[in-house]
């Protein structure tokens, strides 16, 4: 059983904190507890929101006191083990053409490698979706290779287009909508991570796996046209996933300057 703390977040939410850093093993625990809590369908629990290293449980205190909920969490934690199971694995097209990847050359220069090597390393991994947050459908995936891990830029951009792929310290994130953004942009995916029409939906879920598949600018444009026409179909494959903890936990707090 991992170390954890149960912290109050007011009288309608509790935080179960497994650690303070980005660490794949912590995320495995977070998602395992989230699943167990979902399955136990506690009366009074409103929703369970996993983050990179903690879980927040929103609840109605008149149906479930903080003391009862805490006791239930302690009980679930006792029986919790790191789980292996089926996960959705997405292969998502990503265009790393510098014409739509404004920071690709900068990242390459800072890493001391060529832009082609940045693409090779960024797309050569299966990422784990740590969490969604900040914006609807905005996914935080990890971990990126160490040489590509860069902090925020000094000056954020006022608007980046939906689909932008960014380096966010040891994570890589996808921007689901046009938004101001402060991370280095190294590519763009034509996949709609957040759709408003005909129904509102998001693509990724916490715990999903993602591999980016490099496409040319021309292919990107074609896929964008399909996405606009509503004919772009991207389906995940169900795969048996065994969680491998990283050799060394990353100690850098998310968002902190390197």
């Amino acid at each position: 059983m991992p170390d954890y703390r149960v912290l109050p977040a007011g009288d309608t939410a509790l935080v179960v904190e497994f650690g303070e850093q980005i660490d794949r093993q912590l995320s495995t625990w977070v998602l395992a507890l989230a699943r167990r809590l979902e399955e136990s369908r506690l009366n009074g629990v409103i929703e369970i929101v996993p983050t990179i290293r903690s879980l927040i449980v929103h609840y109605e205190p008149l149906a479930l006191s903080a003391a009862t909920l805490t006791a239930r969490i302690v009980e679930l934690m006792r029986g919790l083990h790191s789980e292996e199971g089926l996960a959705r694995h997405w292969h998502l097209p990503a265009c790393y053409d510098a014409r739509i990847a404004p920071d690709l050359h900068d990242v390459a220069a800072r890493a001391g490698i060529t832009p082609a090597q940045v693409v090779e390393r960024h797309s050569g991994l299966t990422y784990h979706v740590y969490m969604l947050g900040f914006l609807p459908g905005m996914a935080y995936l990890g971990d990126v290779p160490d040489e590509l891990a860069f902090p925020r830029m000094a000056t954020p951009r006022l608007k980046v287009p939906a689909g932008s792929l960014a380096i966010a310290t040891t994570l890589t994130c996808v921007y689901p909508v046009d938004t101001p953004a402060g991370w280095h942009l190294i590519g763009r995916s034509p996949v709609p991570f957040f759709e408003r029409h005909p129904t509102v939906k998001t693509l990724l879920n916490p715990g999903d796996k993602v591999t980016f598949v490099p496409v040319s600018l021309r292919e990107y444009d074609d896929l964008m046209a399909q996405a606009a026409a509503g004919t772009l179909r991207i389906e995940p494959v169900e795969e048996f996933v065994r969680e491998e903890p990283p050799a060394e936990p990353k100690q850098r707090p998310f968002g902190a300057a390197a």
Partner: protein
Amino acid sequence: MTGVLRVLSPGLLTTVQDLGRPGYQSLGIPVGGALDPVSLRAANALVGNTPDIGALEIAYVGPTLAVDADEVRLSFAGAEALIEILPDEAASAGYRISTMRSVLLHRGEVVRIGSLTGGAVLYVGVEGGLAVEPVLGSVSTYLRGGIGGWQGRALTEGDQLPLRLDTVSERQEWQLEGFDLTPPQRFRTIVGPQSDHFSEATIETFFNSEYTIGTGADRMGMRLLGPLLEHSRGFNITSDGIAPGSIQVPGNGLPIVLLADRQTVGGYTKIATVISADLPALSRLPIGNKLRFAPVKIEEAEAARRKFVADVESLPSRIVPIGRYAGDLAGDLTPRLLDCNLIGGVIDASVGA
């Protein structure tokens, strides 16, 4: 064909809001909903709606709406405002009505709502509600995501808001009695979850200081001006969940209380969380108001919530018919006649008020 409310002027930020859309935060979709769910419930009760029906939330300056329907019944609850009913669009003057009541309007009439006083938000309840499609179970407008409510955005001039009902129930108008919106002297909070990122002295400063609501306040959060809160272990943390009423302290040391449209997760330390019983009162405070915080234990917060929920649930029982004919409901006046008489009575009452 059902009627519409036509927007002659939209006000500063008028949106459709209900009790929010819980259940999708793990996908990054905030709960949202009314900043002040208590006043929203009051507005709904005044037009005979269930509490979960969407209403118009007005921030600071109200809209002017024309009735393109046979009739519509509206209600007003929350901040005070000058509310005028004009006979038509060309009219420059009409009669004034108070908040915390319902009113029946007819085709061609115009309701003009001025600047709010004593609060940041006012709710306009609509009998039967607006005919807008729920998104993920709610008609709340989430502005940053562009979803919900009226086309995912705030009202603009020329919008035509479709009504669910073309004719409304025949009854007299109602008002709400004993609806107290006085803010508490100190807003109660539970310390944490990142109180260990602050020294004891800093936490003491937070609870002993008066803060002023800064101009950056919006539906996401309320920026407070006052003594700076120093971090003992840096202000960035690995992203963590956010509760309603979380008080986060970014690098500049000035706290931000996170409100209805708060992001689902965030990477700043949170010193304390406003308790659920006090959050609606805090959310309705306007820019420039001063406030203080107090720490309480979870048991006290739970007791406060029991009282709060009982108060909110008693709202419908505090609704009474308006005017001197209140006792004549069972009499032989037809409801229609009653309405006419009541409107007369209301004019007298509000002019004196």
